[in-house]
């Protein structure tokens, strides 16, 4: 190799590292953890990590649409709580002890699932509508909806968890052929659907346009209001889907469930390189970001780091990942 080639290859390495900064952080984390604790790389543990990331990972997919449009949705944790308890109340076995609807016969699985998705989507749509019609900041609109949804969940469930769910629902928390966790399959389907929506539909392009310059989008003929409603509705719908996975894995839903998950979802999206200044972001990034958080949590647990220190480390990683990532968006002149 000549000197020039060495320099060139070094330059491409640096630019590649900048481009995929978070992936490198992730790879280094995986290498480090698996050297210290080889059990990390076992098939069971890898699926564990993916399963653990699936709930906030699904939320992060919707959050990616929202953040690319230069918004934020802090209501997704509460949406999970509300759609979760309603779904659970419709999915109890007939033999459940404290049954929410004592006379309700067991229904086909699709009914409670649709209920969760519809509730999630509707609350998101309301947030989107508020943002579009009243021009209040997304943070405020979804802060309001977050509080309302959590309140409604507590009222609906009377503050108590709803449990003894149908086996057909809890089976979704299990494994396909005893190998692949079904939450991971659901997560991957959501990834593919979101990827296509964002990259191959006019809706996706409008999301980028709204985040890139909302005034120009309006002038260019983009139906901004309609698209904002759709963006938040999709984000809410995915929070409803996350509720399904949550109920399936846990086997019961508490009205206070998933408190704080919205922040994890935002963190995952942000780590994955989606820019809060709008117009920039990828589904792939949201996946990598969620995975990085899950690897970190799992790895630190395997290494025997205490839960409190885990939080400190997680916070630091969020900051470092975003600092690294910002560097690639710095204007060159």
């Amino acid at each position, binding site marked *: 190799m000549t000197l020039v080639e060495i320099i060139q290859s070094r330059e491409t390495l640096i630019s590649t590292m900048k481009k995929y900064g978070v992936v490198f952080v992730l790879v280094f984390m995986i290498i480090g953890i698996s050297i210290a604790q080889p059990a990390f790389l076992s098939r069971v543990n890898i699926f564990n990590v993916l399963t653990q990331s699936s709930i906030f990972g699904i939320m992060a997919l919707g959050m990616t649409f929202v953040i690319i449009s230069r918004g934020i949705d802090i209501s997704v944790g509460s949406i999970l709580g509300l759609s979760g308890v309603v779904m659970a109340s419709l999915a109890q076995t007939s033999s459940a002890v404290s049954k929410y609807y004592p006379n309700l016969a067991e229904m086909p699985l699709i009914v409670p699932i649709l209920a969760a998705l519809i509730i999630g989507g509707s609350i998101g749509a309301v947030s989107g509508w508020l943002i579009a019609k009243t021009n209040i900041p997304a943070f405020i609109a979804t802060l309001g909806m977050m509080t309302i949804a959590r309140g409604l969940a507590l009222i609906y469930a009377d503050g108590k968890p709803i449990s003894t769910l149908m086996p057909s629902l809890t089976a979704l928390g299990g494994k396909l052929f005893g190998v692949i966790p079904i939450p991971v399959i659901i997560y991957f389907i959501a990834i593919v659907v979101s990827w296509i929506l964002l990259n191959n539909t*006019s809706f996706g392009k409008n999301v980028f*346009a709204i985040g890139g310059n909302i005034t*120009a989008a309006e002038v*260019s*003929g983009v139906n901004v209001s309609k698209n904002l409603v759709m963006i938040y509705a999709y984000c809410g719908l995915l929070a409803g889907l996350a509720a399904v996975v949550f109920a399936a894995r846990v086997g019961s839903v508490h009205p206070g469930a998933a408190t704080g998950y919205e922040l994890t979802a935002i963190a995952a999206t942000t780590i994955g390189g989606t820019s809060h200044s709008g*117009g920039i972001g990828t589904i792939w990034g949201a996946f990598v970001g969620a995975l990085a958080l899950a690897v970190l949590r799992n790895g630190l647990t395997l290494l025997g780091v205490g839960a409190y220190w885990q939080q400190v480390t997680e916070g630091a990683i969020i900051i470092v990942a975003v600092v690294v990532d910002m560097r690639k968006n710095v204007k060159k002149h």
Partner: protein
Amino acid sequence: MSGHKYILQMKNIIKKFPGVLALNGVQLDVGYGEIHSLIGENGAGKSTISKCIAGIYTPTSGEIIFDGKKLEKYNTSQALKLGISMIHQELSPVLTRPIMENLWLGREPKNKLGLVDHKKMYELSKLVLKEIDLEEDPRRLMSSLTVAKMQMVEIAKAVSYNSKLIIMDEPTSALTEKEIKQLFKIMRKLKDQGKSILYISHKLDEIFEISDRVTIYRDGQYIDSREISNIDTKSMINLMVGRDVNEMFPKIDCAIGDVKLEVNHLTHSTHFNDVSFKVRRGEIFGIAGLVGAGRTEVLETIFGIRKKVSGEIKIDGRKVAISRPRDAINYGMAFLTEDRRLTGIFPVLSVRLNIIISNIRKYVGKIGLLDYKRIHEDCDDFVDKIQIKTPDLQQRIENLSGGNQQKVLVARWLLTGPDILFLDEPTRGIDVGSKSEIHKLVTKLAGEGKSIVMVSSELPEVMGMSDRIMVMHEGTVTGILENSKDLTQERLMAYATGNIE
């Protein structure tokens, strides 16, 4: 003058950015008490060199001598202390705070307790504002000022720093004729006090009016420096673009057809009153007037960006209801807006997405997915047709020069296949070469039978391009004039200022 002739000497300056050689060994000499203009096409390196002077960039190599001393690496606050101020192309005042707090930002006068002394700040501000003849209460909020006044405040700031060299990067692009006169008055006053001004502008007539000397750059290279008395417009343009630009306004007469767009008694609650006009197929209809005359607002209201109070709009003789831009686009209208950054481009998005965004529905295939093959074909087509210079279409549009960004926006609107085109200051802030290309394109579109409505503050442009000219003054139409040979700039200005018998 202290022994040496120049306050600023820059020798053999090279500035490299990753992948770009922005300045290739340029020089620049500014004399004491001199107004020195720096001209060149977009991308010539004017902004880069000014940023090097102001300490925003550090040159990769080269020598900077200021007031007899050789300067090493320095930043903006050090530059200010040395006596170098820069008034930026885009102002960034703190809008929600008063004038005086903007003036003394970061160096507020303090009392004994170390707290901000507002009374002293007020007195000092009054003095500084008086020095540049700006009669404003220092306690007025920045947000209540016009762009021109904000610029004056910036100049006041430079004065308050006792700057020896003031760099002005396109200060007049948003000013009215009157405001420009006021600015020039102040510039001459500063010059008489022995201060030097480096003036950057695209407007050649202004350069002839105000400067003592002029330096020309092209593609990051120094071309020439001349006394202003030693150069004329034609040679200036030739030096800038490196070729002859003969066809400044290539208007060709073309067949004018039936009335396409008709506006009757259109009224807006604040901006304009009772505006009526007709535009025919193949016609270029100019709208002239001073800033604040309501020209842009008329277009915005027709296009559905603003709400009208009364009046009607007819297309092909039929009354149409337009309540948002989407409706206007569906009626075959397109609107190249005045403020490229605010209402035009999507800075971080690709050139390609910037081209197709208004037309995205056309590319949705059978199952709702986008047909990328057709998108690529159409975009490539336009890049060839109107010569957009970009390394590739995945490039962010913010990396393109102003002229090329404007061409991308033109492509966006042409892709919608419009019959009526609104062009609001279509060549503002873009270089001479791109300007003439856009003029040619506009003429060609008119030749294809499209109706074109063009707002422009540059009288030569309106007069060179239009078939008819509507002149507005403070929200009312003062006249619709045939653009004949005997129409003079003076007569147009009389209409624009409302001074008609």
